[in-house]
């Protein structure tokens, strides 16, 4: 049961947290609140141990992948979705993060959510989320993956709206759900196209090469193979953009910060929002077959990276800064996918999960210690009071900024930047924008450090010291945020990049090879991005150092869902960036209002025409009814009269007939 032919069973990975969620939901009313957290933590830790077991078997046994078939789930014509599991290196990377970082966040939540009214519900959904996410990344085919895909969306909705007593939280949850649903519709269309063209199993994806060369495919109205590939890929890209908060569907993520901070760390930083990266990496053959598609992915990625960095630059809420920074970093992952550096996109996901989960949890510790203060301009001087948190946050922010040679973020981001410059799908323009974004990333990362932790406290707030469960997960993540980068040292260091080398087995010939082989150029690019990171930190010191007068405290409160919150800055451009390029307002004016107008017109048509038809039918029936009740009123005299007229009519007819 737990081993098939000596190989560890894969179904246990999602089944363990699912079991935990089941126990919590069934016995919620009969267990102490703290017990839910213990069950959830044990379930996810067992799952993590099992992931390690499967992963080491995979790596040490030098297998390409494991497949495990259980039963046929959907079997209808070309739609063959089976409940089967698939485990290769990409799955290992994702499950390691989901279960491993997930475990740390579960432990952290155990302390963070102490005394919360909805503690049992929280841990139930947390475990359910982990189960759904593990199904997403271990599924063998796209339909089964879609089950997990929707599962994480639902759990995200429940957890963003955890504090549902405040209406803006539920609005934020609904917004997140609806925007990602919009992407999911496209994902479904893409899945159906995939099912009819090549089949949904991940091992069938090489059949796209035959689709790419065929000029006629029956049943698709004369569309050629390459056109179908482009359509499918665009659908997948939009689906991934919805889930991963990429332009143009990025608007939900900053508002999703309404949930508890560990939720933001797990779902909206480390795992769920990277599902889009996973999707595209799984369908890399489809994407690699169309240069236009690759360009679209790269443009979406670089635009999002730029968008996120500029908006993060002016936010005042610590969680919103991190949310925009997540959008921006996932943009880098998409850029990596778009230039064919599949393994590096996964690598950036891997390092990002550590340092972003770390940053969120450290921010959570700060918020917790300051009694739910989230405005960074009300913080300051926390370096001495929260020393451990400060050091962990520093490691995370340095990794985010890409401080050269010592941080994981530097190695993963620089590898993507180098591929952007050097591979056949890359371009110097995109490289330039990505470099500019890297500079801004460094500036806003260190702005956080200087404003939150340096200088003197701006408000006299009593600091409530975090306990061990709130700090130890941070130290472990800080360790990984530094050393994870050494898994993939650049080739110019004279060593083999272990990560790229191992993943070559998965991505094979589809992995883009650098066209520039000069080590001098690569060194220059490497040092260039290092200098940008350090320069960004320096600029941040010039702008936000405590030696300067502290930034004028922005008027008004943090922005919420709607755009009508008071503008905190005097400058127009800063407010424009503060509101996320006013995308919410733009969407409200175009899509939301357009939708309302359209539905008003349709409602009018419905009322006048559709209802009109049925009202006419009703009037006819009523007429007949009136006719019938004239005869059927229960009065004998009326019946007698009807009989009389009937008899007279019959006699008249008979008489007229006999006359002829």
């Amino acid at each position, binding site marked *: 049961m737990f081993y098939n032919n000596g190989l560890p069973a894969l179904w246990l990975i999602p089944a363990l947290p699912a079991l935990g969620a089941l126990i919590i939901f069934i016995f919620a009313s009969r267990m102490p609140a703290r017990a839910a957290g213990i069950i959830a933590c044990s379930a996810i830790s067992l799952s993590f141990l099992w992931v390690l077991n499967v992963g080491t078997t995979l790596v040490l046994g030098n297998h390409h992948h494991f497949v495990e078939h259980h039963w046929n789930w959907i079997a209808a014509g070309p739609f063959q979705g089976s409940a089967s599991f698939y485990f290769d290196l990409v799955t290992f990377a994702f499950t390691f993060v989901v279960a491993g970082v997930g475990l740390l966040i579960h432990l952290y939540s155990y302390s963070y959510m102490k005394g919360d009214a909805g503690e049992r519900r929280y841990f139930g959904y947390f475990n359910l989320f982990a189960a759904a996410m593990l199904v997403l990344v271990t599924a063998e085919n796209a339909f089964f993956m879609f089950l997990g895909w929707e599962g994480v969306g639902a759990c995200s909705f429940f957890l963003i709206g955890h504090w549902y007593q405040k209406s803006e939280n539920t609005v934020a949850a609904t917004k997140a759900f609806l925007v990602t649903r919009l992407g999911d519709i496209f994902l479904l269309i893409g899945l159906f196209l995939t099912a009819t063209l090549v089949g949904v199993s991940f091992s069938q994806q090489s059949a796209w090469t035959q689709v790419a060369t065929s000029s006629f495919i029956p049943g698709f109205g004369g569309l050629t193979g390459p056109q179908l590939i482009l359509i499918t890929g665009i659908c997948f890209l939009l689906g991934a953009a919805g889930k991963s908060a990429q332009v143009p569907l990025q608007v939900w993520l900053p508002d999703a910060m309404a949930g508890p901070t560990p939720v933001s760390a797990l779902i909206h930083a480390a795992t769920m929002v990277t599902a889009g990266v996973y999707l595209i990496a799984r369908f890399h053959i489809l994407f690699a077959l169309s240069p236009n598609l690759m360009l679209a992915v790269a443009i979406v990625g670089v635009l999002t990276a730029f968008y996120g960095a500029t908006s993060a630059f002016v936010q005042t809420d610590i969680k919103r800064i991190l949310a925009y920074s997540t959008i921006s970093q996932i943009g880098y992952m998409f850029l990596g996918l778009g230039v064919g550096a599949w393994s590096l996109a996964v690598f950036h996901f891997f390092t990002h999960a550590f340092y972003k989960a770390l940053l969120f949890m450290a921010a959570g510790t700060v918020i917790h210690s300051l009694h739910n203060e989230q405005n960074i301009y009300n913080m300051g001087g926390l370096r001495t009071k929260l020393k451990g948190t400060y050091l962990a946050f520093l490691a995370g922010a340095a990794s985010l900024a890409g401080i050269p040679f010592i941080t994981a973020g530097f190695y993963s981001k620089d590898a993507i930047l180098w591929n952007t410059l050097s591979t056949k799908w890359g371009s110097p323009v995109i490289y330039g924008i990505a470099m500019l974004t890297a500079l801004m990333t460094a500036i806003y990362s260190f702005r956080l450090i200087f404003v939150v932790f340096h200088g003197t406290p701006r408000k006299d707030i009593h600091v409530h010291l975090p306990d061990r469960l709130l700090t130890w997960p941070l130290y472990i993540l800080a360790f990984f945020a530094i050393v994870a980068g050494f898994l993939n040292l650049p080739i110019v260091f004279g060593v083999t990049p272990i990560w790229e080398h191992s993943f070559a087995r998965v991505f094979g010939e589809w992995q883009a090879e650098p066209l520039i082989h000069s080590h001098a150029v690569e060194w220059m690019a490497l040092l260039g991005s290092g200098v940008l990171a350090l320069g960004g930190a320096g600029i941040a010191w010039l702008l936000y150092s405590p030696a300067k007068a502290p930034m004028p405290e922005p008027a008004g409160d943090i922005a919420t869902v709607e755009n009508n919150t008071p503008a905190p800055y005097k400058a127009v451009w800063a407010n424009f960036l503060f509101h996320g390029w006013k995308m919410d307002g733009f969407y409200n004016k175009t899509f939301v209002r357009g939708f309302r107008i359209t539905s008003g017109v349709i409602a009018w048509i419905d009322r006048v025409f559709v209802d009109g038809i049925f009202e006419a039918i009703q009037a006819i029936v009523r007429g007949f009814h009136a006719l019938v009740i004239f005869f059927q*009123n*229960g*009065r*004998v*005299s*009326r019946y*007698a*009269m009807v009989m*009389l007229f009937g008899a007279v009519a019959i006699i008249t007819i008979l008489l007229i007939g006999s006359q002829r």
Partner: protein
Amino acid sequence: MTLPINEALILSCILFSIGVLGVVVRRNIIYVLMCIEIMMNAAGLAFVAASARHGSLDGQAFFLFVLPVAAAEVAIGLAIALLIFQRYKTLDLWVVARTKEA
């Protein structure tokens, strides 16, 4: 003397019409029963007249059968009228028709 057939049939028609009109417009059950009697007698007159006209006894024999039927009808009709009055304290047929079963 021979029965003037035309006058007899016209009288029969007039009686029948009076009966029908009474059944249709009267609300009192007693009047309705009486009108039914009138209609029966009108039919009987037509039978007898036709019998005399054709020199056959069939019509008169028929009327002999109609008479007990009419008597039975009156007996049952009056019994019903009695029960209706006991139950509803009225003889108005419209009121009875409008009243739901108690």
